[in-house]
Every structure is written in C-alpha cells, then in structure tokens.
C-alpha cells in the first residue's frame, strides 16, 4: 500500500464511523459516500477502496467495500469478501438481498454454485450459503443489512419471487431483442450484443442482466446510427465483469468521461445521459447491469439536456 493513514486520523475515522453506526442502530454506512438517489456514483474502481468489517449478529464478520448508498431507503451495493470456510446458517433479512459471485465460489444450501452464480432473496426468505475456498460476492441490499437465524421463512415473504441459486450456465444467452421492450427504436437485428437475463420483476420491470459487447468498433454498442447520448427513466447500475470500457456521463456540472476496468462500478440515477464520443471498448466488455422500475431508454443528440442542467436532478 502506498498511502498510509496516520494512526491519529484512522482513530478519527473509526470514531466517526462508530458514531454514525450508533446513530443508525444496527446499521452501518460510510459517511463520506454520495447519495445515489440523486447523484451519479461512478468510475468506481473497488481496488482503490478499503475493506471494512461487516458485522451482523449471528454471522461471522466479513470484509466489505461499499460501492453506493441510498440515503433515504438505506439501499446499498456492496462487495463482500467471504473468507474460506465462511457460512451463513439458514436465516433471513429484513431487506431484499440480491447477489452474484464475482470471484471464487459459494454453495447455496448444499449445492456448489461456482463463479458468477446468482441468487435473489426477498425480505424474510430463509436461505443459507457458504464457501469452502473463499469468494467475493457483489450484494445488492434494498435496505439495511441484518440477519435473523431461522430455518423457515418469515410469514408473508414473497417466496415466489425468490431465486435460490442460478448457475451461470443455466441462464440462456440471447440477443437483446429478447429483453422486455425498453425503447421506441427497434432493436438491431442480428445484434452483436449477447444478453443473459438473471432476474426480471414482472410487476415493476426491474431487472438484473449481463450483456457481452465486442470492442474495437466505432459504435461500440453496435446499435447502428442511434444518437450518441442515452438516458433512462429508471436508475441504472453496472459492474464490469470483464474487459474494458470508456464512456462519458452528462452530469449537472458538465461532461465527465472515465474508463472502467474489471470490477469497475457505477450507479446512475434516472434521467442522466451517458455515452458520448468517448464511448468505446478496446477489447470487449461484459457488464452486469441492474435497471430499476420503468427502465425506458431515450436517445439524445447532445449532452445538454434540460433535466440535467437546470435542476441538477432527474425529472423523470
């Protein structure tokens, strides 16, 4: 490590963390983080972040890195490092938990699932998982993480929506036309993009999906002559599983471009345009995407969108 925090400042940081932790009761959060509900959080390279302890009563403490946080709901996206031999006995949480293994592997219940396996547990749904050799798991919590040990699910849980383990190879690879309609423009026939739909909430349209994009072409999205900038009526979230990508964000303070390497992460609130002339991948890109309720994409010729420049926040 090149930069070292002086012991004194570390103490300060720790006490700040402690105070915040106490203020939120059982919850933990990282005080310096942005509120993703209104601000773009992006170009995050997790290897530049510190590991911090995540302690939930009843489960062995693990390390985590916080990628984004929603002030109002307490929803957050975290990267969790499970040490070899770690396990969570059957139990449930007060928030929805969605997760994917980005390194190593886990067993869900007794079933070994391997790298890139996926699961979704609605609040109150009892589940267990463990790792033999260790794993790094990307977790999306819809609220503050907690844990209640229990063999059975809590009454009233939406058990039907649970996905209790999905192998990467179980998910068919399709063309983008297979996704629910998300824009007015027709999907390019014979598209070079390949998608895997991990989860679709039929009632809200929220979905979690993986898209593989070849690089090295001028219009790297392979979507023909669509305008350079696009925005969504829902929030969008991305985690780069492999490859590279450079793109620009059209933020209230102006255009900002940056590059993503594997594990690169962004959370883009609704209404913020992205793309731009710099949109490019030199190799290829495999994105893990989450798009919120009402995912609907519109295209724009320029970055100067009224919604982005006047209020500084989303209008849709």
């Amino acid at each position, binding site marked *: 490590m090149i930069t070292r925090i002086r012991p004194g400042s570390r103490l300060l940081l720790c006490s700040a963390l402690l105070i915040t932790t106490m203020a939120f009761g059982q919850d933990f959060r990282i005080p310096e983080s942005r509120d993703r509900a209104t601000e773009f959080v992006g170009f995050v390279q997790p290897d530049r972040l510190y590991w911090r302890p995540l302690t939930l009563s009843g489960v062995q403490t693990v390390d985590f890195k916080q990628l984004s946080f929603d002030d109002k709901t307490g929803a957050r996206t975290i990267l969790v490092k499970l040490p070899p031999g770690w396990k969570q006995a059957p139990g449930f949480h007060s928030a929805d938990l969605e997760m994917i293994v980005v390194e*190593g*592997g*886990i*067993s869900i219940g007794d*079933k*070994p*699932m*391997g*790298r*890139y*396996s996926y699961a979704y547990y609605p609040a109150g749904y009892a589940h267990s998982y463990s*790792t*033999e*050799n260790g*794993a790094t798991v990307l977790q999306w919590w819809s609220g503050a993480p907690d844990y209640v040990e229990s063999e059975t699910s809590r009454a009233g849980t939406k058990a039907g929506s649970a996905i209790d383990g999905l*192998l*990467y*190879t*179980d998910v*068919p*690879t*399709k*063309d983008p*036309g*297979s996704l629910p309609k998300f824009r007015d423009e027709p999907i390019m026939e*014979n*598209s*070079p993009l*390949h998608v895997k739909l991990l989860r679709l909430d039929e009632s809200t349209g929220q979905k979690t999906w993986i898209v*593989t994009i*070849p*690089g*090295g*072409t*001028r*219009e790297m999205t*392979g979507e*023909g002559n669509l305008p350079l900038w696009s925005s969504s009526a829902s929030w969008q979230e991305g985690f780069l*599983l*492999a*490859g590279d990508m450079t793109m620009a964000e059209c933020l209230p303070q102006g255009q900002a471009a940056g590059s993503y390497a*594997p594990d690169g992460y962004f959370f883009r609130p609704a209404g913020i345009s992205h793309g731009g002339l710099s949109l490019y991948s030199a*190799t*290829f890109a*495999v994105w893990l995407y989450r798009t919120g309720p009402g995912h609907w994409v519109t295209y724009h010729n320029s970055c100067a969108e009224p919604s982005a420049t006047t209020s500084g926040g989303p209008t849709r």
Partner: protein
Amino acid sequence: MNSLGWIRVPVALAVVFMCVTPPAYSQEFGPPTVDQAPPFPVPEEGYEVEGRPGLMLSIPNIKFVAWESFDGPGIPAGLQRRLLSESPTMGAVSQITYVPAGWSHPAGYHDVDNEIFVLEGDLTISDGAGDEKLTKYSYSYMPAGQMHGMKSRQGAVLLQWLKGKPDFVASNRDKKGTRAYARVRDWNRFQKPWYVNEPFPDYRTGGNFPGYLHALMRQDPDTGEMTWMTFVSSIPAPPSSEAGNFGGGAEVHPSFEEYFFPEGSRYTEVDDREPHKSQYRGECVEQGVSTYKRGTRGYFWRAAGVAHGTVAQAPPRPRDGDGNLVGGNGEAGWGWTLVRTGTQLWATYVTDCTYETGIEYMGEGRWRKYDYDVPRYDPQK
C-alpha cells in the same frame, strides 16, 4: 496453460451455450443441429488451388518466421516479407509484407488475385476509380489483372495473400478479362459491425456457431471463397456439469481454413510448431489427435476435411467444494481472427478421427481428395 489456446475459447463458449432451453421468444444461440450434410454439392476439385503441404500448418507467432526479401518477376524492389505458407502447385502465398516508408510502385497489375490487410501503417492504392487510402485494419481485394498504383507514406506491415506466383506487370490499364466486379475497396474493421448470421452466410443448420460474431469482408461472386473475421470472448464461469450434446463433436469443413490472430488476450511466446498428442480436443492429423500452440499474432492453415474440436468426450473435470474447476476456471478471454476459406463454407460434425475426408498433398504435385461421406455426429450415441 495448455496449448489448445484459441480452440478453447469457442469450445468453452459452446459448453456455456449448449445447455440452453428451447427459445421462448426471439433469437437464442443454441446447440448445433447435427444433420449437417452440406446443402450443396461439394466440388470434386479446386481445393488444390489454395492447398498447402500437410494437413495442418501452424505458426504460433509470426515473429518466428524470418524476414526475407520479397522478390518476383516485375515486383518493384524494396519489399520484405515473412512467408507464412505457400502452395506447392500454384505458388499461392500467405505472407506478412513489409513496405518501407516512402515506397511506391507505378501503375500495373498482378496476374493473380491480391488480398491485402493492413496491420500497421498506411497504403494508398490508386486504380481507375481513384485513391483508396488504407490505414490500420483496412482490407482491400484486387482481382487478377486489376491495374493499380501503390504507395506508402509512413511505411506499412501487411498481411497479404496472392493466389498464385507473385509477379507484377507494368501497365496503365486492366488486363483483359479482369473480374473488376469482384473488387473490394477499403473495408475497415473499426467501421464495421459484428453480427452472428446474415449477411454472413449460414454455415450449418440450427444457426451459426453460438457465441461467434462474424464480419464478412469478401465473398467471391464466382467461387464462394470468403475472407472474414470472427470475434469471440468468454468469462471464466465453470462449465455446465450436465452432459452436453456438443461433446464428442469435431467440426469438418469442405474447405480449408486459414487463420490469423491480429488481437486478443492470448499471446504465444514459444516457437512450438510441432503438434502435441491430445486425447480429447485438437485436430485429426497424420499423428492422430494433435493440438498446436496458437495465440495472438499466430497463423495456421488447416486442410479441408480435417476434423478439429472435441474428438472425444472428456470425463468431467474435478471440482472444488464451491463448484469451480480444481485449478481454476481460467481467465476472461477475448480475441478476433481473420479467416480465409475456399469454396462455400459448411460445417459438419464427426465423433472422432476415424474417418477419411478432405484433401491431402501427396508430394510431386499430386493431391488426394477423400470421400466427403463422413460419419455424422450423433449425440445420442
């Protein structure tokens, strides 16, 4: 790392895609259908036009081939080349050509088809239709007899195919009978999208190879010969543990396949051109099942009818308690390739190397064409 290199990516992808449920809607990239007899008569002759000695000629990296002066009747001096392969009967060559800065030649034509792919630098071709300015990853095809001038400002490195003994005839007009309609002008990789199917022709029933993207650079209007690109990528997910119906299937084409790997994540530093014995995956050649080193900036020429791919069903690889392969699932990989095929492209599948098909050079200008009636791949057996 084993030496399967490039073959592994598509095979891994095939494994990834093979356990797919039937499509509920839209396009889905499924397993191959096994009734793969070509829907066209396989020509009785013509292969030898592009033939190379041996069933498999592999160069792990072009840097292992020494530069030499590129000379031929009438060819302006100053060019260097790495000769990758040469047809013993026709004199056709595949080569890396070095064009020095400021080099030029006056108007004239070659008596053979000339295909150029610019790897580095610039090249301007001037034919009757005007200047064609080629830059990195530009492709140009000039049929035999096409009059053109040529110059390079900052120098260039080309991948070049000449379909016959290289020569040059000074002239300010096309040779009589030139197939001017077959000309392909400045096709650039950075400008072209990738796709799976049309306009890339179907080369098997049940959809083209799952996971492979294509870009067609040239399809000869007379012979069906093609020059094209593929793009493939993968992430290190553990393979499906269910028995796949692709296992035990090796692919056979009625055409030779010639590959060059301009870019990708697999680079080969070892000059290991000899085949290695292989049990499950590789090429069916004289020595039995063999596999070769191949990587970025590598080249190979595989004779028509040589089965390649999975020649036997491998036992499931051991897994750790988390469901990953012991020793890891590998790394994310990507790459694109340049491919040339003669005649129409078609893929059929065989179960192992016990078949006789294709074309083989017997020496002294003699070629042997095997019967194409190969045993069909049947996943139920």
